[in-house]
């Protein structure tokens, strides 16, 4: 019985990660990709923002699949948070530079 | 365009024939590995040829949409054709074995 509830909890955590976490990850990527595109691919700012937003879906999609493949639900959450933070860091660093 | 369509259909049929199960149902004998490899190589080659002869003009993006649509239709056709054929085969086998018992 206890394992059953644990399983349910894990499933809920994963679903939440897939919905909320993946969207947040996509959102973070739409910010974080802008400095990357500008500095590494010499894009104009308008192009970079446009492309970053278009590509964000791909990141979101990867996140959804990833969340369901990770061994433990909390690991999935941890990785999503790491991903989000690193993209946002790039965004802030890029904004300063 | 029609040429490409037919080439693609034939290529897919060859590819399906490269699988032992389908080959047995169609030709009533097993398929050697060498033959299977030949069939599949030839099939892929024809598939590439059908794509090349469709895309080889200035409307390449539009034509690749055509090619993919053809692909969808042709896979369905080949799948249905093979299944229909193997069903007939099974029925005939069943009829034969019944005859033998009587």
């Amino acid at each position, binding site marked *: 019985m206890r394992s059953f509830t644990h399983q349910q909890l894990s499933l809920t955590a994963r679903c939440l990660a897939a919905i909320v976490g993946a969207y947040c990850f996509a959102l973070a990527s739409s910010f974080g990709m802008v400095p990357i595109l500008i500095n590494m691919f010499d894009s104009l700012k308008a192009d970079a923002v446009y492309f970053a937003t278009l590509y964000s879906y791909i990141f979101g999609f990867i996140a959804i699949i990833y969340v369901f493949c990770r061994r433990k639900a909390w690991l999935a959450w941890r990785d999503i948070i790491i991903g989000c933070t690193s993209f946002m860091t790039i965004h802030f660093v890029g904004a300063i530079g | 365009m029609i040429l490409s369509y037919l080439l693609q259909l034939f290529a897919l049929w060859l*590819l399906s024939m490269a699988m032992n199960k389908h080959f047995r149902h169609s030709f009533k004998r097993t398929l050697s590995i060498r033959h299977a490899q030949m069939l599949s190589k030839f099939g892929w080659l024809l598939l590439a040829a059908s794509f090349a002869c469709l895309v080889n003009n200035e409307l390449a993006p539009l034509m690749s949409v055509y090619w993919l649509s053809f692909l969808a239709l042709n896979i369905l056709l080949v799948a249905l054709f*093979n299944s229909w054929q193997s069903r007939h085969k099974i029925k005939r086998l069943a009829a034969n074995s019944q005859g033998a018992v009587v």
Partner: protein
Amino acid sequence: MKPDFRKTMIWLHTYSGLLLGWLLFAIFVTGTLSYFNPEISQWMKPELGSQRADSNNINQSLARLNNDAQGATYWRINLATARNNHLRLSWGMPENGKSSRHSVTLNSKTLQPLEIRDSQGGNFFRSFHYTLQLRNYGGRYLAGIAAMMMLVAIFSGIFTHRRFFRDFFTVRLNNVFKTLTDLHAVIGIITIPFCFVLSLSALFIYISMYMPWSMDHHYEKGSRELNALVSTSLPKLVPAGIAAKPLTDFDIVLSKVKQQWPEPNAIKRISYQQPFDINGRIVVSRHKQLSLSNKSEVLAFSSVDGRPLAGVEPERNARMLRRIFYGLHEALFASIGLRYLLFFMGTASCLLIASGLIMWLNKRLPKVKQRHLGHFLVERLNIAGIVGLMLAIVSYFYANRLLDLQLAQRAEMEVSVFLLTWGAVLVYAFVRPARRAWLELLLLTAIAYLALPLVDVVINAQWLLDALQYNNWIYLGFDLALLITGGLALLFYFWLVRRTQ
């Protein structure tokens, strides 16, 4: 949950498909119908008539505009096409600082004004498939979520139906349930590119609604400002204030257009901007027959003497990428053959979703002793979602023919009939035993589809006779499609009766 990748994928496929399956089915059916949007509109507005357009009706239209709309701020001619016999003139008259809109629909052969019934035509299906009739209540967000779910379902489906990739091209025909599973898999495979492009482009189309944060952060006015930065358009027209007479002999422009756009019937729309000014401009828009992008190609000419003016620069890559996906989604480039192929793939996707939903239930029902609420819900929603939608669609066509033409807000009434029918089927599905509900509703659907062409003839036989006389294959094709759909429903009904006895 076990961390095994394939098991996870199967679970994901099952529940991502089930959760929004009915919604996806409705979106795909109405979206597939939208491939024939102009044709459906043509059938639903039979007053447009079957007499084909004349090639020189541009000049006649211009003469008419010159007569009726002196001093207008713009003239516009939407030409009749092979797909929709709708010739519409519109113009704007300056009225205390603003311009008031006027428009008239003409018979494309005789150029007599027509009184067209108030109906949304095929546009209803088009808007329903992304707003779900909930435009102001987040309908488009819901459709966006459904599109993402579809992507997830496709991806996980590849792993779920792995067996099918191994013995490719096999549909086991000896057992109904196995046939259904295999058909689901084979259709799934052939529609991977189709569903993928459609879902992804659906997400791209409303990108400024689904993912606006980055744009809003970087630009003050958000997506609007960004779009203006990456798009190109004709230079802004500044009226000189010097009066001039507009060009009413279009042949001068037509020969120049022919040089650039050699294909027949290249012109979709002709608009005169500030026709009574010396800086006035003629903008000719091209049919999207040859390019995937949804950017409409235009040529500009002076409205005084027809000399060519500066055109539009090619757009930046970022914008082009979205434009191409938009164009692929709308498929306005498709010629008649490709259109039928796309329609076939759309129908296949609908079958894919429907068979998936039915499989979920049939796999579980024989195994469980005690049915729980979930089984009951899925069973009933299957009925309402699949047959109910077919019935609702045909009820929309019936409403188009049977509602009184003088009714106020007639177009809205037609949509209400669609929704009410659907709701009624939903209630019916919940109160009847499942098998009986399936059979009765299927029979009703079949009869409704088969009877509609007959009802049409009874109401006004002249429409059909005209269509026959002038070879209006759009009208006849629509009737034919109704008969085929009805026939298939009837066949399915008899098959189901035999099967479940």
